[in-house]
């Protein structure tokens, strides 16, 4: 190709990026298109780092102290140990921090000249390690990711009487490799502890101290199940490498891998040394590791599941393979049974899940707390857990808790560690579930045990743990009552040992207030006294938390309980002069919530004191402070004791200077807060004062700011009216509003609402401006943006009434005509608005004066009825209904009939409003045309397929009957009932139910005409017939009560009565209601004689039904039954005399 000749393109090909994308895709062999959404469903992936700190928590093995005392054994591993461990942990953290500080200091001083990621000098490490060892006095707690030192195996032989002990397992299945997901070969804690020690979370411990181990095996950043990052196993290496010429070298002595290969995936072999796993077992392990390409959907003994995730394989490895059940011990069988049930619940289809849930609940005590929670809790801490799975597992815990009751005690802490994070979940339902569980847990375990379990976490070094513990405690308080927890709270809030304990104690009080609301009132003084001293605490965090807790208490107690806060008023008001920043904000918040509680005569003094600070803080640049200041100003303005004068003089000038600036409109939360506060101030200062200050800003150049002004004016005028606004202000206001409306670039509700509200509030005063306003509307109705046209139409709807009030009929006519011309609009939203506007004009002008004339308007609307858009349908049907009601005579009958047919289609609409409007329109049309034709249309419609359409037709028939008189319809319905089609007959019956429901006492004239039909229906084989007929009887009976139709009603009663043995819920419901209605018409005495036959019938099924009828009768008319009770004196025997002697007296 020569250089300057343009290159000829002989074929087109895809752009380079696209090709690249495909190439990338091809490289990434198992690209999972669902990966992205899956990670969104996973709770852990979605939550913040703070939430995910739950994975770092440790749970300690608990002991049922009560149980042990009963058994006469010494309690170990309980509260004391938990406290000691907790102390060690704190100490460890402190030392770590000290080391970090030291390093940082060293770096800053420039001593450290090497790279930052270089390991620190050896001496330093040694020193730190030494310090660590000294400070803790024991060996460092073992982390899950460190391999066990070899010396530990010596301890393994130690006794463990638990049924899950190693011995037991070994005996049961000697050559079986243990595939426990966490299996670590040690359980060396004290002999004779709780017999059912479970070991789901136990790591080996070198010394006989209770194991404290991380509950979580999945540390952040280590996804063991990721098959790309997995370690190569020996088998794989064997397959890859040639068998000759290589030698497997033993690792050097003392070598320990920094990160252990995943324990659960590569189960630790027995102490005895290497062993070869069985074939089926290996397959399960392979599946667990993700080697097996497809995941099972059928699990032996479980059946098919809805889904199965790769992560599930680790937990359920044992049941994935076929096993010879005869070789298993009882406990192993039990364990597998639990796993199967859990898998069914977690991954099964709803029916499978339901039965499994019931089984696990029923057998909970049989399974025992240990085995159950050993399986459930690890599942809940899985990183890839999704909402649905979590919900189901939490449900399992809840059900199981009920059954286990106090057996649950040893597991309280473990359960809490898993459940507490739910309390700070962003999902409301998760929070509710968490509360439910903890409340049930505390009821099952008892207060003392809950306190002793949770006490160590109260001054935990990690803020996350303290936070969740405080919330859990508040749940305990609400479950067991505040008084029982008060002594403990008092002690904690006064703790001298650590400020963290005081902080948490006060936070518990705060959480109690937030959670229990006004239920804190009886204990308010105690709670306040409990935390009052915290305001002068030496720790700033404690002071802040105290103020927040007081705010929460005052908010919960409002409007009562000011006397309980007496003690804290002074420290609070002194405090706002002493503090700055965060704690000042908290103090102000507390004051803001206490002010509304005060008596009006004192409040002004306190407000004056706080206003000085508030005004100073108006200038703050801190967003949080700004919000709190605004809130407090709002609360001050709302109190009764503050005078308008004071607000106008002392607060408003600074307030407007600080907050009514453009910058405030940019942040959504600031925006809302400023608007709310200003509206509250307006309640005191008056409309003119506030509107006068901001009205000029309606012409501001920043649109968000104009919107903020508009919204404020709207709210102020809507609540206080416009009578306060003088003439000059009125001119500026209307001018500003028109300007703001015209200049808007994003058409939203705020401007529209504002315009409508202000104009409606001004009423007749708006007349001079109407020409201008209407010309704006007209101009905008022809705009090329559909949104603008829609908005103009909406504004017309709102202004129509005011325009009429001002007597500007020509303007309305003009608008009506323009809107009429716009009926060809193609955007459905806009069309809907235009029709609604036309309807509003028709409403105020009246049908006779309407321009365009009705006879032109309606034919134009008929085809629009076919539009599928809901908004259009609703607007159209409303307008047509209105015309049918008020001006039917302007339209020829033929047109109405056409509309009737169109209306039938609308009966299928989803929106109830549309169906109701359509049904009502039938009534109006029938009224003007006479019922015959309309009724014919409706009765024919009973033959259609859709149930909804038929039901609506029956309602329409009833409405026609109501508007035109029952005599016009009932004969036609009865005639139609003779059709041999089931749907039609049911429809006729249904129509009659509505007819008799609507006409009420008028039914007395028609009873005799429908009796024969009802006889037929009540003796029909079809259940639905009898049901519907019973409903008719009910309405009839209620309608004719006291009108002398007892003979026919008695006849119907005899036909209804045999149906009382029906079992289908709807039928029996209808029959019972009919019988109940009969009580009203025939009187309770008659009904009693019916029931007396069966109250003591030998067959239980009969008795049950009769007693139910009797009970309804009794509750309805117990007093009236007295004279009708049979005289049973002859049944008297021995001491029991059944004669009712008072009734036998006579004069």
């Amino acid at each position, binding site marked *: 190709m020569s250089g300057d000749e343009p290159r000829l393109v002989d074929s087109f090909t895809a752009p380079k990026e696209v090709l690249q994308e495909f190439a990338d895709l091809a490289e990434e062999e198992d690209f999972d298109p669902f990966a992205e959404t899956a990670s969104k469903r996973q709770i852990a992936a979605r939550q913040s780092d703070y939430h995910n700190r739950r994975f770092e928590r440790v749970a300690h093995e608990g002991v049922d102290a009560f149980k042990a005392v009963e058994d006469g054994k010494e309690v170990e591993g309980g509260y004391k140990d938990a406290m000691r461990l907790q102390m060690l942990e704190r100490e460890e953290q402190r030392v770590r921090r000290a080391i970090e500080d030291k390093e940082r200091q060293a770096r800053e001083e420039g001593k450290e000249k090497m790279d930052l990621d270089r390991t620190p000098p050896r001496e330093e490490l040694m020193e730190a390690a030494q310090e660590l060892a000294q400070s803790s006095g024991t060996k460092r707690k073992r982390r899950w990711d460190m391999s066990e030192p070899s010396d530990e195996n010596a301890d393994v032989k130690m006794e463990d009487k638990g049924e899950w002990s190693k011995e037991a397992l070994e005996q049961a299945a000697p050559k079986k490799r243990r595939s426990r997901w966490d299996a670590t070969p040690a359980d060396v804690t004290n002999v004779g502890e709780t017999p059912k020690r479970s070991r789901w979370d136990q790591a080996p411990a070198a010394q006989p101290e209770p194991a404290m181990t991380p509950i979580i095996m999945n540390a952040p950043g280590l996804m063991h199940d990721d098959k790309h990052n997995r370690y190569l196993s020996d088998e794989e290496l064997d397959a890859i490498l040639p068998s000759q010429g290589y030698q497997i070298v033993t690792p050097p002595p003392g070598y320990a891998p920094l990160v252990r290969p995943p324990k659960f995936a590569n189960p630790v072999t027995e102490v005895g040394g290497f062993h070869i796993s069985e074939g089926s077992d290996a397959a399960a392990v392979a599946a667990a590791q993700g080697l097996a390409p497809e995941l099972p959907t059928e699990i032996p003994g479980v059946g098919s599941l809805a889904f199965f995730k790769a992560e599930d394989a680790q937990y359920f490895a044992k049941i994935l393979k076929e096993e010879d059940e005869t070789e298993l011990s009882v406990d192993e069988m039990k364990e597998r049974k639990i796993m199967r049930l859990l898998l069914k619940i977690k991954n099964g289809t709803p029916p499978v899940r339901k039965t499994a849930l019931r089984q696990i609940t029923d057998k909970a005590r049989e399974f025992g707390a240990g085995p159950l929670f050993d399986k459930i809790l690890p599942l809940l801490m899985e990183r890839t857990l999704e909402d649905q799975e979590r919900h189901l597992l939490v449900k399992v815990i809840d059900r199981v808790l009920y059954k286990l009751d106090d057996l649950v005690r040893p597991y309280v802490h473990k359960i809490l560690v898993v459940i507490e994070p739910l309390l700070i979940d962003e999902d409301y339902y998760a929070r509710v579930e968490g509360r439910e569980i903890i409340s049930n847990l505390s009821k099952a375990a008892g207060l003392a045990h809950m306190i002793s379990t949770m006490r160590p976490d109260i001054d935990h070094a990690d803020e996350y743990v303290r936070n969740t513990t405080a919330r859990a405690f508040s749940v305990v308080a609400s479950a067991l009552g505040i008084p029982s927890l008060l002594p403990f709270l008092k002690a904690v809030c006064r703790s001298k040992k650590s400020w963290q304990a005081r902080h948490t104690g006060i936070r518990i009080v705060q959480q109690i207030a937030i959670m229990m609301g006004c239920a804190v009132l009886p204990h308010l003084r105690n709670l306040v006294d409990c935390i009052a001293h915290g305001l002068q605490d030496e720790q700033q965090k404690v002071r802040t938390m105290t103020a927040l807790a007081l705010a929460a208490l005052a908010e919960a107690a409002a409007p009562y309980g000011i006397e309980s806060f007496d003690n804290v008023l002074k420290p609070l008001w002194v405090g706002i002069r002493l503090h700055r920043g965060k704690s000042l904000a908290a103090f102000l918040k507390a004051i803001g919530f206490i002010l509304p509680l005060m008596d009006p005569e004192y409040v002004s003094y306190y407000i004056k004191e706080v206003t000085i600070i508030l005004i100073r803080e108006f200038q703050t640049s801190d967003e949080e402070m700004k919000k709190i200041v605004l809130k407090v100003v709002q609360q001050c303005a709302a109190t009764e004791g503050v005078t308008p004068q004071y607000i106008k003089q002392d607060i408003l000038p600074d307030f407007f200077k600080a907050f009514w600036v453009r910058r405030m409109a940019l942040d959504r939360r600031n925006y809302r807060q400023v608007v709310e506060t200003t509206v509250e101030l307006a309640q005191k200062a008056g409309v003119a004062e506030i509107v006068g200050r901001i009205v000029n800003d309606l012409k501001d150049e920043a649109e968000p700011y104009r919107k903020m002004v508009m919204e404020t004016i709207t709210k102020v005028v809507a609540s206080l009216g416009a009578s306060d606004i003088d003439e000059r202000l009125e001119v500026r206001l209307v001018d500003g509003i028109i300007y703001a409306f015209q200049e808007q670039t994003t058409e939203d509700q705020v401007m529209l609402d504002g315009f409508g509200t202000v104009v409606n509030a001004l009423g007749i005063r708006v007349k001079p401006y109407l020409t201008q306003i209407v010309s704006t509307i007209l101009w905008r109705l022809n705009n090329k943006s559909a949104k603008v046209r829609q908005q103009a139409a909406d504004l017309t709807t709102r202004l129509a009434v005011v325009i009429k009030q001002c007597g500007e009929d020509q303007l309305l006519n003009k608008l009506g005509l323009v809107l009429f011309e716009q009926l060809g609009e193609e955007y459905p939203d806009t069309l809907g608005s235009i029709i609604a506007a036309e309807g509003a004009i028709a409403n105020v002008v009246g049908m006779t004066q309407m321009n365009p004339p009705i006879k032109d308007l309606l034919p134009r609307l008929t085809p629009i009825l076919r539009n599928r858009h809901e908004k259009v349908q609703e607007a159209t049907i409303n307008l047509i209904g209105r015309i049918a009601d008020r001006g039917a005579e302007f339209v020829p009958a033929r047109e109405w009939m056409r509309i009737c047919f169109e209306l039938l289609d609308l009966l299928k609409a989803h929106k109830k409003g549309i169906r109701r409007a359509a049904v009502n329109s039938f009534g109006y049309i029938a009224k003007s045309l006479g019922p015959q034709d309309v009724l014919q249309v409706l009765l024919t419609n009973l033959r259609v397929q859709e149930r909804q359409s038929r039901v609506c037709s029956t309602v329409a028939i009833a409405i026609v009957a109501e508007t035109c008189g029952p005599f016009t319809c009932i004969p036609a319905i009865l005639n139609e009932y003779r059709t041999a089609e089931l749907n039609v007959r049911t429809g006729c019956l249904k129509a009659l139910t509505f007819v008799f429901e609507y006409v009420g006492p008028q039914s007395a004239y028609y009873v005799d005409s429908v009796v024969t039909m009802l006889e037929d229906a009540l003796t029909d084989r079809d259940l639905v017939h009898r049901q519907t007929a019973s409903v008719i009887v009910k309405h009839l009976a209620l309608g004719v009560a006291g009108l002398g139709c007892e003979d026919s009603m008695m006849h119907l009663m005899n036909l209804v009565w045999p149906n009382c043995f029906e079992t289908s819920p709807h039928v029996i419901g209808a029959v019972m209601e009919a019988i109940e209605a009969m009580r009203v018409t025939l009187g309770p005495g008659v009904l009693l004689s019916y029931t007396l036959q069966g109250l003591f019938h030998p067959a239980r099924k009969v008795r049950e039904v009769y007693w139910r009828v009797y009970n309804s009768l*009794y509750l309805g008319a117990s007093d009236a039954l007295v004279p009708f009770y049979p005289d049973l004196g002859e049944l008297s025997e021995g001491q029991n005399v059944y004669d009712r002697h008072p009734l036998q007296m006579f004069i």
Partner: protein
Amino acid sequence: MSSELRYTANTQLEHLHARYTGTGHADLTKYEWLTHQHRDTLSSIVGHPPLASYLAIADGEAIGRVKFEMTERMLQPCGPPPAKDD
């Protein structure tokens, strides 16, 4: 209640009934039922002044006395409960 009906709205009705005194069930004894009837009768007399004054005249007692006696009688109006068979 039969098992088909256990999960329907009628159970609610049943529960509602059970919350009131004087209602019955399939296992109610003659004694219990009649006791309720007697109590209803007595309270009806106390609650309807014309009935109370009628009885007062027939008995030659004060109306207050009649009402008091009726109220007193409401405690075991048919005598002590019969001994249980089983």
